[in-house]
């Protein structure tokens, strides 16, 4: 499963960050690391991007970036 498929108000755990390069490094820096529990809070009014909480703060990312985060249900 990938983060872009998760429904709002659902919690999940990060399994792996896919890819490499800038965006991948950025996600790591922002605290999206393996084993982290996150929650999809909401989707923007126009359907993209999404709002998640990670490490106790709100982070927004596009579905295209969320695709790079592999997650599992908890």
């Amino acid at each position, binding site marked *: 499963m990938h983060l872009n498929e998760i429904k709002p108000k659902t919690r999940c755990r990060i399994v792996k960050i896919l890819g490499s390069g800038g965006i991948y490094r950025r996600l790591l820096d*922002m605290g999206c690391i393996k084993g982290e529990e996150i929650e999809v809070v909401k989707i*923007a009014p126009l359907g993209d991007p999404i709002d998640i909480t990670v490490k106790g703060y709100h*982070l*927004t990312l596009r579905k295209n970036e969320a695709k790079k985060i592999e997650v599992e249900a908890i």
Partner: protein
Amino acid sequence: MKLKEITIALAGNPNSGKTSIFNNITGARQHVGNYPGVTVEKKYGNVKYKGYKINVVDLPGTYSLTAYSEDEVVARNYIINENPDIVVDIIDSSNLERNLYLAIQFIELGVPLVLAFNMSDMTKTSGKKINIKLLSKLLASPIVETVGHKNKGTKDLLDAAISHIENKDREKIEIKYGDEVENELEEMSKIIEDKKILSEKPSSRWISLKLLEQDKEIIDKVKKEAGEAYSEIVHRVNKSIKHLSNILRDNPATVIADSRYGFIRGALTETHKETETGKVSVTDRIDSILTNRIVGIPIFTVLMWLMFQFVFKVGAYPMDWIDMGFGKLGDLVSNAMPEGLLQSLIVDGIIGGLGGVIIFTPNIILLFLCIAILEDSGYMARAAFIMDRAMHKIGLHGKSFIPMLIGFGCTIPSYMGSRILENKKDRLITMHVNTFMSCGARLPVYILLAGAFFPQIAGNVIFSIYVIGIVMAILLAKLLRVTRFKGESSPFVMELPPYRVPTLKGVLLHTWERTWLYLKKAGTVILAISILMWILFTFPMIGENYSKDYDAEVASLEQSLESNEIIEEEYEEGIIKTEAMMGAEQLAYSAAGRIGRFIEPVFEPLGFDWKLAIASISGIAAKEVVVSTMGTLYSIQEADEETESLRENIASEYNPLIGYNFMLFTLLYFPCMAGMAVFRREAGWKEMLFQIGYTLLLAWVVSFVVFQIGRLFI
């Protein structure tokens, strides 16, 4: 007694309250500049404190020190190259884990570090307890609690920084990344030390770490300086990466980030007691309305509308005063000085030119006031969240929306407002297409021409020009994204910071800085260009070379008046007409007029004659000047867009196709010299010249196509 000089680098995450701490320390003694070679703003200041002269440098707000953004590279290079005595890292106490991630990277760099746990009052109310003493020991760095917006803890922070600098046996800790990674780091460090690759700054271990993380900037640096040893070190790095990926089943960069967060988590579990309150935070409650699926967009629209009204409607009053003030000043000088060249230079060239710069100040002040409030309150990030999908579709960023909207008022603040975009490509594309948002100065031109050629449907015609501008912006944004600023649009991974009440001091300081920057930099350039424009329109002087003997005409008018052949009114009308005709001849005779004639062939395929060519040139000074130049050209004194006789003259000389085409041309070519001066300041010479070149080309091509196709039908 000579003061001992020390330098503090202020670092921290965006939204950590770094700016208010900076303001608390330096007060009014601060300056804004740019880091060399980049557009990143550099703020610095100093303060005398307990026998020290403390220089404070405000590093750009970053989450990390990887080479992800220009800001991060700037912050990192400052530490490495400038060797500040100490780094003070401002930590948002309500989000220790992510904020400490940056602190860990300063520890990796080996630079002396003091942590300011800012907004500590918030954590006390939210029921979080931290054992600061223990945490400080684990991180080997003093920790001071501060409340930036209430100016609490500032002195403690300075005391801690000074005593940490003076402390000769500072403890040093090393972040460990696990045995496997440590082994590889050691191997790589050996090669770096043996081959003397790069100087030992900051340390061979750190360089090895960055090479393992595949940090592009460090790789490039090593490539440039390592010479023959480059292949050896690259070979070693690749081997290490492969080896680690095999055993750890993960990219080394992941493992390193994991270890950093692991270290933080370890330290926090030891020192941090969180009493879950289970309450929904204020921010979440506000967000349930402001970013709501249904009302989110309407609220955003209303806020933008209010901001636009505020910036331009409220701004209109001081703009009138400034306009009047400069007009009065001009009159005063005109009366005090004998008529002649010098008077014309001072009144038309210098006072007029300066007025043209200063008149935009109210807009800029009000705009940056709004932006400061939007940013400091946390709503800016939400605006980007709401608009990103639509803006992303056209190759822009959610935040691009705000400067583009501002462009409908004035292009200058819209260029400056593009600063809210952190990514350089996004910023440049936004600036390059903001030009096509019809600014207030273009409206008089539209009103004049639409009124002259399409009196019945003027409103619709003007509206169509606005729409064409928006369509052009969308098309050009897409085009620029796939050509000049190629590459995936920058990823959108952004913090939605907690909502906060902006502080008056912070907002005002921010606004003042931007305004001053505009006045200072744009002012000097624009003054020079104003004088140049004045010269172009004044010289060479026509002298005795008028086509008719106007003096004789004036004399005969006077005679007629004396012999009561005409009444006073007719006489004055005649004089005005004569003077206007003289003005038109002088203009045609001047360098600008000659240039107009010279470039007429270029404009011919667009249906424009030399008069329209000159009008376009004068529009470089400011677009509304096109109207007054046309007034001179068609021998109408004191013309504005509502002048009937000017409309009649123009309508009789050209057909509606040419009229519409000239509106299009005015819409599309770069806004004005003040705009270009700001563009250069914000983006550099190269981008400014590109802006001028491509908008001229676009204006020409579009007008060419419209005229050539249009004339088949009429």
